[in-house]
């Protein structure tokens, strides 16, 4: 969202804009270092399904035992089977971020994740973010309310997941606006709340709004 703003289509057509480019595009982004692809998800040597198969994982600090077929996504399992409807379904194709949850602390699109991928893992949804905080809301959640960082609210659970992970990476220190924009660059907001989300993250990092 931010780093590539040195380049414009109009500039490319006119043959200018390369000077700003030299200055503006040099910094690489710093995404989370490890993806889930690095850790084998579960015990190898086993075949599951095609029918329902037992599945255990931790959801918002609680052990969950259920039974779903391999074809069930994590998103549908959360919403339809475990009644955890805070996580939203919009595109169901990995393109909007409404369905984001934390898997072992990493933001992940639950619509492109199979439920069985999280066997033995810790999953945190928006419902779990307030645990242990005054009034059942984390400082980030309170800052979202205070800074008016939501309108219809459909993107908000995913926004909160991305921003919670960002604040965990910075150890609570205030991230730059660029870092916040990068962190939410997978969260589509049709209401255009982005500037308020950036303000909310900054104020949450500044000591609970």
């Amino acid at each position: 969202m931010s780093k590539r703003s040195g380049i414009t289509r109009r500039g490319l057509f006119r043959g200018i804009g390369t000077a700003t480019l030299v200055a503006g595009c040099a910094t690489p982004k710093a995404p989370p270092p490890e993806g889930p692809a690095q850790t084998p998800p579960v015990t190898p040597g086993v075949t599951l399904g095609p029918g329902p198969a037992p599945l255990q994982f931790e959801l918002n600090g609680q052990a969950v035992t259920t039974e779903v077929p391999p074809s069930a996504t994590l998103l549908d399992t959360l919403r339809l089977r475990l009644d955890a409807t805070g996580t939203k379904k919009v595109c169901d194709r990995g393109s909007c971020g409404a369905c984001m949850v934390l898997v072992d602390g990493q933001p992940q699109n639950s619509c492109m994740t199979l439920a069985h991928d999280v066997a033995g893992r810790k999953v945190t949804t928006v419902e779990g973010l307030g645990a242990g905080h005054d009034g059942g809301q984390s400082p980030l959640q309170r800052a979202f309310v205070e800074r008016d960082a939501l309108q219809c609210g459909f993107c908000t659970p995913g926004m909160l997941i991305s921003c919670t992970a960002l604040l965990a990476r910075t150890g609570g220190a205030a991230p730059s606006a660029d870092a916040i924009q990068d962190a939410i660059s997978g969260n589509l907001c049709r209401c255009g709340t982005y500037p308020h989300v950036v303000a909310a993250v900054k104020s949450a990092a500044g000591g609970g709004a």
Partner: protein
Amino acid sequence: MKPFSLIRPASLDEARAAVTAAPEHVLRAGGVDLIDQMKEGLARPSALVELRTVSDAPALRELARDGDGAWSLGALVTLAQLAAASEFGAELAALREAAGSAATPSIRSMATLGGNLLQRPRCWYYRHAELVCLKKGGSHCLAINGDHRYHAILGGGPSWIVHPSTLASALLALDARVELAGAEARALPIAELFVGPKEDATREHRLAPGEILTRVTIPAAAPGQRSAYEAVKEKQSHDWPLAEVAVNVTVESGTIKAARVALGHVAPIPWRAEAAEAALVGQQPSAALIERAAAAATEGAKPLKRNAYKIPLTRGLVRATLHRALEVASPA
């Protein structure tokens, strides 16, 4: 999605055996493209074979440089890892920048190098379950007389897709090779991995059924080698490139000794702009030279009715990446 079993092999041999056991058994890496195709009804596997549970092939997860300076990148390395690879120097900047520009942060942490190279095209006619075009065994291409604003301007016909892989452009510029595990192990220059529509419009890569891409290797850099990548998109995140360019240049005592210019999202295969490369080699970097190379990059372009805009766009990207890689300030 149609019900399927999930096979979790412990070894590469078990994975290969499971994939070859039936034609409806499909290998899953990050699953980003595969699950999309399954939800659309384009792929209907009876079993997914997990590459991520294979534990006897460390090469699959490697991100390492050998004593001679050649890089080995495992098929399961994620785009997020490549984007964060601070150990890549100026010579591999194109790969780091390409990986960091594709998709979104959370998709990049699922998507793998191997899956990115082997994903299917995004042509919206192809992606529609009920449409049967040439690529799906039909009689003709629906894009030629349809909405082809995102389609090919170079090397098109009889299918006019653009190759979807962002990493492919960077790896083509970097002269990478791919290693495949199959009945016999083999290695190919990355350019030979891809199949153009004139040869076979129904496929985009040359893997035999059951073959597994294990890793990508990049030869050691020459002194003075630098690379760069740029893309233009309608939206700055989430979106696919309208065009993308990776360049790899080696400058020795003020003269360009070697040049690779690779174009993405303008042709059915990752496309080498050989006329642009020829214009650069043996010359001294200058804004005028870059202008000539940029003009040469789209030589031979045959746009369809609605995508000629990609010609000036691609030239602009070639100019921008070359200015950066050659450290030539812009005249503007």
